[in-house]
């Protein structure tokens, strides 16, 4: 198997913690992984992405080639579209619905929404609203991960185990909140995916 994932968003949104959990889950299953990250200047509110590659065979390139990404997971809708040429023709986009506007020329949201709507396999999820409703405001990225679980084809129990491992040092209540977030994301995705 091979699974090429582009994680993207705005510097500071926390895409790397999603990557850490997926990476841990893949490692636990004895798979190969390579994960290229962005450090430095862009982390100051610029666009950031991470190429996460998982395979049952050794992986050569640290970067994903055009048209090869199986899933784009984005914490921001315009950022999801930025990497469109990377997506495989039967790939999935899982994106947070709410825009992060920190630039003066952010495009009209109608444009962004309509472009996303034209794609065949998209899940748009308002992670901020869900997090707020369930009083887990700091777990938006894990809600997004939950929504991506099926598209990723990753074992749900394994993701839960990785969440336990990674958040363990932050205490049981943080672990519980993130497990809840994962479940909420998955539940949403079951009922709201577009597949043409």
């Amino acid at each position, binding site marked *: 198997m091979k699974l090429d994932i582009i994680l993207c968003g705005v510097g500071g949104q926390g895409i790397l913690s999603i990557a850490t959990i997926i990476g841990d889950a893949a490692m636990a299953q004895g798979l190969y992984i390579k994960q290229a990250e962005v450090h430095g200047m862009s982390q100051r509110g610029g666009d950031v992405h991470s190429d996460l590659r998982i395979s049952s065979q050794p992986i050569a*390139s640290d970067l994903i080639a055009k048209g090869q990404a199986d899933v784009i997971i984005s914490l921001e809708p315009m950022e999801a579209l930025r990497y469109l040429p990377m997506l495989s023709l039967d790939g999935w986009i899982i994106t947070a619905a709410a825009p992060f506007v920190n630039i003066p020329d952010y495009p009209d949201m109608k444009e962004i929404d309509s472009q996303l709507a034209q794609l065949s396999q998209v899940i748009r999820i308002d992670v901020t609203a869900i997090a707020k409703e369930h009083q887990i405001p700091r777990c938006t990225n894990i809600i997004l991960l939950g929504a991506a679980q099926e598209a990723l084809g990753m074992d749900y129990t394994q993701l839960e185990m990785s969440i336990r491992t990674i958040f363990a040092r932050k205490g049981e209540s943080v672990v519980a909140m993130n497990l809840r977030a994962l479940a909420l994301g998955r539940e949403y995705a079951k009922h709201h995916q577009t597949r043409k």
Partner: protein
Amino acid sequence: MSQNQTKKILVLGNEAAALGAIHAGISGVYAYPGTPSTEVTEYIQGHPLAARRQIKSTWCTNEKTAMETALGLSYTGKRALVVMKHVGLNVAADAFVNSAMTGANGGLVVMVCDDPSMHSSQNEQDSRFYSKFAMVPTVEPSSQQEAYDIIKHAFDLSERVGLPVLLRMTTRLAHSRAAITTSDVRDENDFHFPENPQQWILLPAISRKRYKKLVDLQFELGIESRKSLFNQYINGSDKHMGVIACGIAYNYLMESYPDGCPYPVYKISQYPLDRTVLATMTSEVDKVLVLEDGQPFVEEQLVGIMDTPITVLGRLTGTLPRTGELTPDNVLAAFGLETAPHLDEASHIANRPPALCTGCGHFDMYSDLNEVLTQYPSAKVFSDIGCYTLGALPPLRAIDSCVDMGASITMARGAADGGLHPSVAVIGDSTFTHSGMTGLLDAINVNANMTVIISDNLTTAMTGGQPSAGTNKFEAICQGLGLDAAHLHVVVPLPKNREEIKRIMKQEIDYHGLSVIIPRRECIQQLVRNKKQQPTTKNQ
């Protein structure tokens, strides 16, 4: 006594090299933070074995002090690692080039992270030119595992040939994670003096002898490259073309040919270039494609300036882009292979450049300065390297230059000499101690008509909040350099102090001579990090 511990861990390329260095028995790492190199030192600082062994790892003031300190450690027979970003090597160049003249006693590895595509840098210079210039060996890993293995090899090589070894890494490997398997952990070296103490005194008479020896050593270094397990000649059935793949380029080659490359391949991870293997390849094939991240270093050496009997393809021929990093896509294209079918770029995608954080003290400082300077249409602001370089972007558009570490003060002084007024320098606290102090001394000595703003956020912010060497010392440093205390001001850049700050800025710009204003307020990011750390400290 060495201990065996083999396990698989997921690490960045930088961390793999850092761990390799610890396991190679280093006694110290010396560095100034700079993307993409920072994680090497941070990893060593946080590693339990490094703590147990009391490996020296405090950040240095700049790359030159780091390089020289490492050379001193090597003098005592201990193994030393120096780490920097590519442009840092310009700062350390005097020490680096001359360390090839003194040679190394304990293994000395100079790890330099290049940044092709300039993700976080002002140029994309290729450090391999420096090691060729200094005539020392270079190693260039292609993967995280190789980064771990090759740095251990580099320390052994350094001791075997008695020279520093440059380890070159590029951004993509530095900042990409993969699992590695660790191997033997070596002890630190015992204290021992160099065999030939004279060699370390670079007086002309000694230097001339030593230089001859260094030149003679080059033959041996070529043999080392030929024997190196990190260089590999892999024969291929299709002799139309041979491929030379340096460092991480090898991965993109393998990505292009998942079932194996049909052409003969020379994978290079150690330099100087071994002529013998290159000659074998060129005698067998019609043309050679050179894949290398950064500048056309190998390609230029193969081509020379005269016609060559063999066609060499690469960045100079446009087969690969002349600038920017290698990607799986541009390597595929170099082979004439098709990329997978994909969608076009989306429309309506706006650029999202990095920006100063909300609540950043630099922002207040620039806002105040901008307002004051509206009264002086000829004003120019010479800025420097750090978060505050982002003051160039809208809405601030507050600066007119950013060149290299420290250039704000010296350029402002040169411009003041040329008659510019107001000539303003804006420099951060860490950059000031890195390379601004000497320039300030020059300016003070001639009482240059300029205003220096040391925007002090109490940390090295851009690289993630490392301690800043001059914290709590800036007033003393400026006065110690001879600044008139009447023209030294410390302010707190907050909106509520705006009128006071503007008044001081105007007053000092109008003063005919040198003034220093220090707006001081802790970095917002650092404030958050400190808050996060506090409960953890309590728990321990």
